[in-house]
């Protein structure tokens, strides 16, 4: 039987995701440790000077900053790490003709199934956060660089879309470990590569559906978090605190 209600829209306040992130922009120093950690964990390729300057860099997470005012009263806006917001009602999902970007009902994440992707790039156009990267080429990774590849993550080839997965390989590993020990995954037992590296602990990752988890507590304590472009009804799972 074909279930066509795969990308069922879930609107309204009762939406709670599973995994979520809280990012404190006041703490983020823009040091790029998360970007490097993400690249190392997820086998992200580098593209070289020309392509990276042409909007083809493969970063799954980027740190945005803007300027306010004019010299000398100029200020840098709080650094804003942008990665896939793992929307509860993602705009990328319904437009993929091949179901390569689908909602994981089990993990409440937006999946990008590399081996199903035919490369129409519709999802990337339709992502209001512009956080998807496309493999424009088979970028060369000369030997022995490939020794560093994480065996838990597929190495993508040309013509395939990719994006932040919330380190789903770590989620699975932790779940597998917990299951083998006959327990639930404990909050803080594992975290994403970016959150693990962040020297300022600006990124916190965890279960948003668990009121006792650190992310939920932080969200409650700050109380004034922002979800980006929430007005589009995307139900993102990343909360930002501007702080300051």
């Amino acid at each position, binding site marked *: 039987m074909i279930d066509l209600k795969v990308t069922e829209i879930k609107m309204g306040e009762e939406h709670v995701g599973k995994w979520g992130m809280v990012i404190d922009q006041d703490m983020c120093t823009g040091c790029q440790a998360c970007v490097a950690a993400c690249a190392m964990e997820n086998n992200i390729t580098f593209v070289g000077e020309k392509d990276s300057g042409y909007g083809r860099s493969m970063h799954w997470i980027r740190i945005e900053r803007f300027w306010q005012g004019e010299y000398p009263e100029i200020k840098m806006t709080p650094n804003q790490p942008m990665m896939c917001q793992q929307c509860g009602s993602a705009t990328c999902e319904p437009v993929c003709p091949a179901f390569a970007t689908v909602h994981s009902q089990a993990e409440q994440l937006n999946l990008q199934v590399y081996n199903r992707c*035919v490369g129409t790039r*519709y999802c990337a156009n339709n992502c209001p956060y512009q956080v998807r990267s496309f493999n424009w080429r088979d970028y060369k990774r000369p030997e022995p660089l490939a020794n560093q590849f994480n065996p838990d993550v597929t190495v993508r080839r040309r013509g395939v879309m990719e994006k932040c997965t919330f380190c789903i390989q770590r989620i699975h590993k932790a779940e597998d470990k917990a299951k083998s020990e006959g327990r639930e995954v404990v909050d803080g037992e594992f975290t994403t590569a970016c959150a693990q590296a962040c020297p300022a602990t600006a990124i916190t990752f965890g279960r948003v559906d668990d009121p006792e988890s650190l992310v939920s507590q932080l969200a409650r304590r700050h109380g004034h978090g922002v979800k980006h472009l929430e007005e589009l009804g995307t139900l993102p799972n990343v909360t930002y605190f501007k702080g300051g």
Partner: protein
Amino acid sequence: MTGYNKKEEKAPAGVHHHESHGEEHLREQHLMLDPLPRGQMNEMVMESMHETSWKFWVVFAILSVIVAYGLFFSWGKMIAEGLGIAGVNRPSYWGIFLVNTVFWIGISHAGTFISAILRVFRAEFRRPFTRAAELMTTFGLVQAGFSIFMHMGRVWLFYWLLPYPNERMLWPNLHSPLSWDLIAITTYLLSSTMYLFLPLIPDLAMARDRSTGWRKTFYKVLALGFRGTEGEWAHLRNAMNIFAWAIIPVMFSVHTIVSWDFAAATRPGWNSSIFGPYFVIGALHSGMGAVIMVLAVVRGTMKNMKYFIRPEHFDAIGKLMLLISMGWAYFFFNDYMVQWYGGDKWTHQLLHFHEEGPMGWMWLSMLVFNIVIPWAVLWNRKWRSTPWIVFIVGLLINVGMWFERYIIIPVSLSINRMPFTWRLYHPGIEIPLGIGTLAFFILLYMAASRLIPLVPVWEVQEGQMAHELKKFGRETVVSVSELE
């Protein structure tokens, strides 16, 4: 041999010479009132296919080289190396490939529009050039198909977009406008090919009876044994009527669905509810422009075509073009107003970017080419009856419409809700590929002009049979009788 190149030779001997000047003028102007013996007309059409000058082959060879390099070699290279050699980037994930897809689908609208709508409405001037327009539909769709497949990152897996049963329980996503596209375009390609083929059958039969050698075999196979019996004609007319009616909604739906690729997306400048009709009228705009260009070329280069395609036809199409241009202007304005009035800050930013950004010249030329020039030229009967003038107008309209799609796709994609990622798009290998599709379109058309009667002779003859000049007192009046 009955050439039809000079006015003097036009009227066969002994016919209507004694008639008044007004009548003479009418005959000269209207193909329907200027009948030739059927045998002679058939010969004229056969001749137009057979008499091929060396210039034709030179152009043919050049185009073949362009197609081989621009389309097949470049595409192969792109498949092998990835889309990096094209100009697409973040955020302009779609580039000229999609521009060309929409453009070619737009071109393909003209054929159906002229042939089906005008047939349904019994517009008599359509008769000599329905085939020329229908061929554009089919060949234009072929180019659209090429363009959209080129655009795919892993085109070798295109069959995953088709619904076929498999043990993985995987189906295409019917939520995706791209799946709708696939269905719509395939339907349109199939139905328009059928619709091209049906009226072709009597002409193929005619050609079969007048050919020898491999051509005879070719026509014999294609003509499906058509002999012209009453029963066959009745069936054919029935089928054509059904198709003519049925293909009209398909045609409108195709471009509406193509427009939903954009309108259904959550992007500023794209999700506009007016996009459906706006795209359809845009398609007709470019399609009519293309038809008139093709007719001008066919009339100028192919033998005997000056008899079949006359200034009256340019005049009629010119009027249509003027009308469509007005319609397009209305929808453009409508779309602009709604977006502007909507007040979304990103949309405002985008509209501003269209007008004053680095591609502002394109936006302005689009308006000039699509509105100003048609309006300025086509109101004049003399101008719009002159083939080279309407050719230029048609060309400019097509450039303008291509610009319109370019502005909607890569230019609009440059601006989104994340200003940190805004970036311009600079085409790469899209250019040879785009030129390749254009060359392939012309090449297919040229090849078809050698194989298929470009003028539906039987339709012309049918029209001529139905038309009569009658005299009421001193007035000469055209009367048309119902044939079916």
